[in-house]
């Protein structure tokens, strides 16, 4: 929950006292309802001067997403709640700081893998863990 990649001491305190709802002002619904876990995010190049106006979590997201990254991955790496990450990324997309790549859009014309294949992959993953 302690965001912004702040790796200083006092993380325990911050985890204890900082609350996630303040990051978004209590919002849980992203500006873009289609924002899914697998949506890919990339920071627009040359946008650095605008970063100063962003919140610290958003600046961390912007720094992280210089490489394309999914929403779920951002959430995991920055230790942000998934719901909060979605709201933040949605705001950034609206602002034009990041662009979103929706997997549905990119693979819309391609044939989806068959369900049986996905189920087998799932079983295989379970066996690994």
């Amino acid at each position, binding site marked *: 929950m302690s965001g912004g990649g702040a790796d200083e001491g006092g993380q325990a305190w911050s985890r204890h006292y900082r609350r996630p709802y303040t990051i978004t002002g209590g919002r849980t*619904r992203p500006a873009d309802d289609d924002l899914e876990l697998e949506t890919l995010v990339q920071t627009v190049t040359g946008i650095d001067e605008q970063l100063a106006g962003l919140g610290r979590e958003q600046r961390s997201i912007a720094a992280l997403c210089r490489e394309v990254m999914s929403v779920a991955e951002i959430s995991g790496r920055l230790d942000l709640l998934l719901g909060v990450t979605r709201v933040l990324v949605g705001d950034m997309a609206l602002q034009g700081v990041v662009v979103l790549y929706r997997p549905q859009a990119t693979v819309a014309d391609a044939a989806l893998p068959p369900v049986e294949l996905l189920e087998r992959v799932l079983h295989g993953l379970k066996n690994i863990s």
Partner: protein
Amino acid sequence: MRRSRSTEAGATSATQRTAAGGRSGIGRLFPRLPILGDLRLGRRLGWVIPVLIVLVAAIIGYNARAIAQQRGSALVVYTASRQRAFVERYTTDVLLVVDGFKADPEESGEDVREPVDVLLDGGSVRAPQGGGRRVEIPPARDWRVRRKLEQDRRLIDQLIRTGDGLLDGGRADPEYDANVTRLRVLSAQLSSVSNDAVREITQQTEASLSRLVQIEIVLGLLSALAALAMGLLLRRAGAEQAAQFRSLVNNSSDLITVLAPDGTIAYQSPSVQRVLGRRAADLVGTALGDLVHPDDRHQVIASLTKLVEAPGATDNFGCRLQHEDGSWRHVESICTNLTDDPRVSGLVLNVRDVTEQAALRKSIGDLLHNLARRSQGLVDRQLELIDELERNEADPNRLDELFRMDHLATRMRRNVENLIVLSGVDQRRRWSESVPLRDVVEAAVAEVEDYSRVQVAGIHDLTLAGQAASDVAHLLAELVENATSFSSPTTMVEVSGGPTGNGYVLEIEDHGIGMSDAELAEANKRLAEPLAADVAVSRMMGFHVVGRLAARHGIRVQLRHCWFGGVAALVLLPAVLLGSAGERPAMAPLVPAGVMVSPEPLLVAKTTASGWQPRARLPLRRHAAPAPNRGGDTDTAAEAGEPVE
């Protein structure tokens, strides 16, 4: 005097009655006499004054009577001696007429009778001073005088008869020679008897005068004794009053101490024996500061130093004083500067032992602390649970509900931790590692009911000492809560920060209607001097908690008017609490790194991203009224969690 001694036996009871406030005896008899009334003499003094008055009246009366008697007896003596002259004149007149010379024995005869008649029966005679005035003479009373006077009268009758015989017969009368001889003999007899009468009268008068003088001497002696008794009783009454006052001072459970302006004890009431187990005489000349607990010494000396500057002023302070056996007694003292009063010329301290109250307060504080600590544990577990649920929640609606629960639990934790602060038990959780200042500010915002209206900007990349982090967060939360409560729900509350020469200042600004100068002064006073926990404090818990928390860490908090309306709360964090974050040096000019907590972060971010700016501080007005459209319940807060368009 014997009676006065017997009344002294009841002196103590009379004193008690007098001390009870009743105006007995003289005080009641002479309510207008200030001295008697003030001294409130005992009842035993009551008899002295009437006796003295009677004695003086008697002396005056006897004096008047003696003067009158003396004057009367002089008149009697004069009248009696005049009678002798009249007898001789009559005798001469008779002989002159018989010998053919011209005289008036008839008139002389009448004159001879008058004095003796008046002396015997009373009446008026011509005054010796003449002028035709007549003086009344009372009839003689003494029997010896009356006998002589009656003999006088018989002899006068014989004399006048003999004189008449001579006048009728003339020289031709054969008994002429015998009558003349008889007349002369009678005249001589009269002279002798008159002399006797005068002597008797004089003797009587002198005897009565000497009696009067004796009585007056006795009366005078008695008056002198009565006056002496009154003087003694007055002195005794004064002494008793002084003793009474002394016993009040000595037996009072309070200490009365007079401090010389240099802080040494000039006078100490003996009750110090009971309170501190020390002898008053041992303390005189020593410094009061030596008795004060080292932790309290600074504050006591500061209070006294301030007081010495202001003659006539009064100050209160509490501290601990050391008992002879080494234990500490909690005392409260009221100190008055009487350096202007030449009879005192020092600071008068009235010190009361409140150790028991302090112990009671401590046990209540412990109770409060234990209850709060248990609640704190429960709330912490609740928050951990909520953390877990939030982590796994993908549904925005359910996450929203979890956020509301999270917010309520966070506010509950703040209240519980405030209670721990108020309990006065200094047993904080220790967070040894330092915490980013931004995290502290955000934690504070999370604890506020209306957190969505709070906008944090321009907090520098510093860290705060771990042991102060929670306290600073609660302190900020109280100030932010105050700001949101007293401003319109449509306005924002801004939290910003900036380095100063001796630390870092956080500023919390609202856009409310402001506070009046008096309210501002009152709030600042409470911030600067937090009171002991009591009922009054619980109603104004916010500022009190802020004051306490600030005092713990040497933080200074002040409220000021904003030039655009509203109030700015300034929190000066001392440099000793601060550290630099990461590789950056502390207090270096930084690119303001705004942390936005706002429903529309991207739209308002630029307005506050410029970092710390010194602000004009102009006195503006505000009266504290809750902002409109606020339910004040928790639901409002939950709704505030929704985006505000």
